């Protein structure tokens, strides 16, 4: 008697569906609105309003004074590193990638202090790596790393925002004694309270001799030569300071952060844009794989990489217009659990013998006084290798373009975003 016209009451009618949907949707809206208290993160660090021309160093936001870390070795030490940055032996050396047990330095450390080291080659670029730890740092949560190796500008940023653990100088006597003078008294951490350099390096041109000669292209000696090669066989760096720094040198502009102007950056952008249209790509350390696959003929590269991980065909040169110089620094991010062990590691690698061992493999410039003498004993030809000991001419052409004012950095990010298509 209540069957209406034969319609099956068990089938959902349109009206019921819309009613149900409206109720569910409204409920969801309420849940979303109340749930999404827009993030009130930690109070933004007081950054100095830097004037355009002269970047002032950001003040260091010190954490609350902590008691000296107890001198107990805890582990395992979690260390985030770049690829091709520590001495390797065996299969790992041929593969050019760390695998547990393949680094003499780490093995000696493990034996000496009876602690495990979790060494991960997680960093391909500063920005990419920082993106993985920034949310935790902003929220005040541990990042999972005890030590990270980041370039000057990122180390400066992390330290200035109070996101670095303080180093107990009594635990690192080797560092205090052996740090090379040119690397002391950095504007952003004059007392080395929060960082010690790992290696110094240069950015210049890397190329593959065979690929270029096979395709009848000249070997690049200057940045202008690099720009002239077929753009789809060339890569620049996704490290913006290196790419734009070299771009400034190529255009003959000053690569001094105090005097670079907005117009200079725009000019570099306009100079690189036509290459992007022809197939230029921006990579981090992935250029090592591209060189191995012969996909890339020439690139902006970091000085040690091709020598340590490339083939004999692959060469690094400092461009005639000049090169960029920088350091990668060992920093302990806030929330590190094994601080004492990290300090021991810093101290360990500043022993001249160990430093020589590392520099002899990675072909970067060691920050340790006395490493030069040790390398001469260990591997005499290395003592005159221009990658480890740059000539006076190269040193004269080096520029440090790491430390930019906020305004310059914002413009740099925008221009790079436009070039890279994201």
């Amino acid at each position: 008697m209540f069957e209406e016209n034969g319609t099956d009451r068990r089938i959902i009618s349109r009206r019921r569906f819309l009613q149900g949907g409206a109720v569910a949707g409204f409920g969801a809206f309420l849940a979303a609105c109340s749930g999404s208290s827009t993030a009130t993160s930690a109070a933004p660090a007081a950054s100095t309003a830097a004037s355009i021309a002269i970047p002032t160093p950001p003040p260091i936001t010190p954490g609350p004074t902590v008691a000296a870390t107890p001198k107990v070795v805890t582990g395992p030490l979690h260390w985030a590193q770049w690829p091709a940055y520590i001495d390797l032996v065996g299969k790992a050396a041929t593969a050019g990638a760390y695998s547990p047990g393949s680094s003499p330095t780490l093995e000696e450390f493990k034996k000496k202090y009876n602690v495990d080291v979790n060494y991960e080659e997680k960093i391909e670029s500063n920005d990419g790596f920082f993106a993985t730890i920034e949310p935790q740092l902003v929220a005040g949560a541990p990042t999972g790393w005890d030590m990270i190796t980041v370039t000057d500008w990122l180390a400066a940023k992390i330290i200035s925002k109070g996101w670095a653990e303080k180093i107990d100088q009594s635990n690192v006597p080797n560092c205090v004694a052996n740090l090379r003078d040119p690397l002391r008294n950095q504007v952003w951490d004059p007392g080395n309270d929060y960082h010690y350099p790992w290696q110094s390096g240069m950015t210049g041109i890397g190329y593959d001799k065979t690929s270029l000669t096979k395709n009848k292209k000249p070997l690049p000696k200057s940045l202008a030569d690099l720009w002239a090669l077929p753009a789809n066989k060339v890569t620049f760096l996704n490290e913006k300071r290196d790419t734009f720094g070299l771009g400034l040198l190529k255009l003959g502009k000053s690569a001094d952060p105090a005097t670079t102007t907005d117009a200079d950056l725009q000019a570099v952008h306009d100079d690189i844009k036509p290459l992007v249209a022809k197939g230029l790509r921006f990579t981090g350390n992935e250029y090592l794989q591209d060189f191995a696959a012969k996909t890339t003929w020439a690139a902006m590269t970091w000085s040690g990489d091709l020598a340590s991980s490339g083939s004999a065909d692959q060469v690094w040169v400092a461009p005639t217009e000049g090169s960029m110089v920088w350091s990668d620094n060992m920093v302990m991010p806030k929330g590190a659990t094994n601080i004492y062990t990290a300090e021991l590691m810093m101290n360990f690698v500043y022993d001249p013998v160990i430093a020589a061992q590392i520099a002899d493999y990675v072909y970067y410039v060691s920050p340790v006084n006395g490493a030069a003498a040790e390398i001469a004993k260990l591997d005499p030809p290395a003592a005159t290798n221009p990658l480890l000991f740059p000539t006076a001419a190269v040193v004269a052409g080096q520029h440090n373009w790491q430390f930019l004012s906020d305004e310059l950095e914002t413009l740099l990010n925008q221009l790079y975003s436009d070039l890279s298509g994201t």
Partner: protein
Amino acid sequence: MTTAAAPRKAPGPGLRQRLGRATPYILLAPGILWLVFFFIVPSFQMFLTSVSTGSLMDGYKLTFSAHAYDTAFSQFGRQFANSIIFGGTATILTFLIGFPMAYTIAFRGGRYKNLLLFLVIAPFFTSFLIRTISWKILLGDAGPVLGPLKDLHLIPESLSILYTPIAVVAGITYNFLPFMVLPLYVALEKIDPKLIEAANDLYASGWGAFRKVTLPLALPGVFAGSMLTFIPAIGDWVNAELLGGTNTKMIGNVIQDRFVGQGDYPTAAALSFILMAAILVSVAVYARFLGTEQLTG
């Protein structure tokens, strides 16, 4: 006989009938709850993020400003175009490759149907990422495909496929092929061969029977397959990231970089919404074009 008493009320629905009518809702409840908590609520939150301002460092404030949409519309035209073109081309290619495959398996498979279906799915046993990376090696300048051809001087030495749109479309086509083949197979499998026989009896040629009988009956499969391929393909970022260059970036790459790389949540959320809207419009137009009555079989 009986005196006409007051009219009796009809007995109301009993418990069993009430449960019976509620059955569809009870069965739908898990699915609806899932959608509400993992799709509708996050979508609203994402919408609120897209109209906020701020940065990861300083926190986000809900200001209902449209600046993120402004950026999204003005700066990324090429990437949107790339997404639609690459996704669309890949869908068409998977259809052109997949339909003959599905047809053969359904109509000519015979004893080997299961084995052939297994072969279609077998690549899925390996991770998506590994398969895409292996294509990076395959399509390399001196790799197994181009290397021998260059040694034989059949193609110029400087020819590259990797990091061009061809590599990206090829990667997407390869990765989404099973999503096209399987729905097509299911739809074709259901077709009664007697219908085709009847068409032939009525003087239809082989091609005519195909066009007038097989294809229309397979339309639900075509629709399902193309949706399963097109929608994920235009949001894809793995293929463009690994196999593509600077000019082949898709919207997925932009969203990933804005969200993870730059911490620019409002723009990333705005781009996601625009992408969703574009997909909805395309699907609606496509469904109209195919004719919705035919799609429900």
